[in-house]
């Protein structure tokens, strides 16, 4: 295990070095936002739940980003909201990324009828229009964070499963895998010992991609009014601001709408650019081999 970590630590350093300027900027922004989420209690000085001043104050110290219609500090809302986005992103990418990968490995390794059923299912999942289905499902499951993660995972596993399956197809022809299976290694043993470690970079890349997508999807659902009403995610802040009567005829949008918009855009864009960059680098590696 420690060998495994050292190997990928080295690899991630070389990936970082190979990135373009835009990619590096994306990494920095992403880490700053993660730090914001982690240290939310230390960098905010007002409650993110209770009112801490007059309603709709413009940005001015101590409310550096102003307050919303209930007098809650927007900087605190944003810092704690980052936690929701990241929890949902991580949860979905772990569940759908690992789950989808394992399904893909099993389909690719077992072949035959299992593979055909899984592939049909993947095609159907990909053909279904994502957002309408998610709206219906989110409405059905009820909008707690856990349920949102479940819904998002249910509709995100097909992408990684398809990629991992085709990688498994070429991997299983390798001599050492055949050898191991002739020595009597079971499917679970092979998946744990050989497939997952060998396919790890590919799994990691699709997990980063999934994370970005999940954050976008959660924000979209919250924006449509299907988010967890108690979570205070960024999409929800935007939803409240937009639903405020006549927000465009007042100056309130200049802080209430603007700041969550900026942070959400930064997070989503930096994640997407990051995954694109990593995909590109690992792609050229494959070609160079």
């Amino acid at each position, binding site marked *: 295990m420690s060998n495994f970590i050292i190997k990928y630590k080295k690899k991630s350093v070389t990936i970082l070095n190979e990135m373009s300027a835009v990619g590096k900027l994306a990494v920095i922004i992403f880490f700053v936002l993660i730090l914001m989420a982690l240290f939310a209690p230390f960098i905010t000085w007002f409650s993110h739940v209770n009112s801490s001043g007059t309603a709709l104050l413009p940005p001015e110290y101590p409310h550096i980003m102003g307050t919303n219609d209930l007098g809650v500090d927007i900087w605190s809302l944003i810092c704690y909201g980052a936690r929701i986005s990241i929890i949902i992103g991580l949860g979905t990418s772990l569940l759908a990324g690992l789950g989808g990968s394992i399904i893909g490995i099993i389909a690719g390794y077992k072949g035959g009828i299992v593979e055909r059923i899984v592939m049909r299912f993947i095609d159907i999942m990909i053909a*279904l*229009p994502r957002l309408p289905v998610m709206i*219906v499902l989110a*409405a*059905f499951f009820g909008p707690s964070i856990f349920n949102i993660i479940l819904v998002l995972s249910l509709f995100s596993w097909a992408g990684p499963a398809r990629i991992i399956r085709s990688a498994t197809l070429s991997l299983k022809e390798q001599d050492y895998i055949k050898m191991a299976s002739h020595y009597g290694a079971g499917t679970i043993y092979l998946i744990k010992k050989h497939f997952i470690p060998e396919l790890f970079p590919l799994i990691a890349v699709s997990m980063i991609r999934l994370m970005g997508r999940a954050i976008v999807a959660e924000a979209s659902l919250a924006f*449509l009014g299907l988010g967890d009403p108690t979570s205070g995610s960024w999409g929800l802040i935007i939803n409240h601001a937009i639903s405020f009567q006549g927000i465009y005829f007042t100056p309130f949008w200049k802080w209430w709408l603007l700041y969550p918009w900026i942070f959400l855009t930064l997070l989503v864009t930096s994640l997407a650019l990051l995954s*694109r960059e990593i995909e590109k680098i690992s792609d050229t590696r494959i070609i160079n081999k």
Partner: protein
Amino acid sequence: MKLKKKEKIFEYIFTLFIIITLNFALPRMMPGDPFLHNTGGEGEVFTTHTVEQIQYYREYYGLDKPLYIQYGTYLKELAKGDLGYSYYYKTDVLSIIYKRFPWTILLVFSALGFSIIFGTILGSISAWYRNSWQDQILYILLIIISEIPAFLIGIFLLVVLAAALNFFPLAGSISHFRDYSSNFEKIIDIAQHAFLPVMTLTLARIGGIYLLVRNSLSTVLNKDYVRTAKAKGLKEVRIKYIYALGNALLPLLTRVSLQLGAMIGGAILAESVFAYPGLGLLMRNAVSVRDYPLIQGIFLILALMVMIANLTADLLYKKIDPRV
């Protein structure tokens, strides 16, 4: 080959079955109840319906029967083109959808057209000047734009172009209570209202088309026959748009029809941002008032639209590319 075709048909039928079943099952398992909503929020009890009335309505709408009978009725009605009766709007679902449908179609297809046109132009510029600074700037700009989700772009456009600068109307699809002196004026009004949502959708989708054209065109441009054309002294425009682009169009076509699903998702969000009265806004409202038949109907129509698009892509691909 024959087996493949059979499998494909089976896949479409199975997808349709899943959509219909999902459509039937999910709204019934949703938390909340249409009668609960009619009688006010949780905790507050002001009864506008008595128990007998609720019982009557349950029977009237068939909600008291076992699920498999409800499913059978649902399928039968569906086959007749009856999507049910909206609890909230108190008319049949199909006529509500019918009224809203053209607006969504207007948005989706204009955005599709614009993103193809501009994506192709920008993509071919990029491919022609590959690796120059113009290409680099275009590439980075379009990638960043295409990664920002549609509703964030929409909010940005709404705030800047409609609220702050007042160039465009804030909401709706047409000015209410206004007499038009000519049809032309009416069209202008509709175009003005549609401009921002269409722009939002176009910006959200243009990156994919740009990338596709850029990549396929730059591989084609390195082919021998293009070099021959250049050597013959053919005009740049002719080489670029007739010889090279003609061969790069095939993947574009499939890509576009497969993108329709994402486009419809984007349309739901864009309509919500701009309060544009299409199916997306209708769906959002239907979910918030728990209008089961309406949600079912919209979901079914949207899913059907996407399926038809995928089918068209499959058929077109076979028509254009004889190898398949």
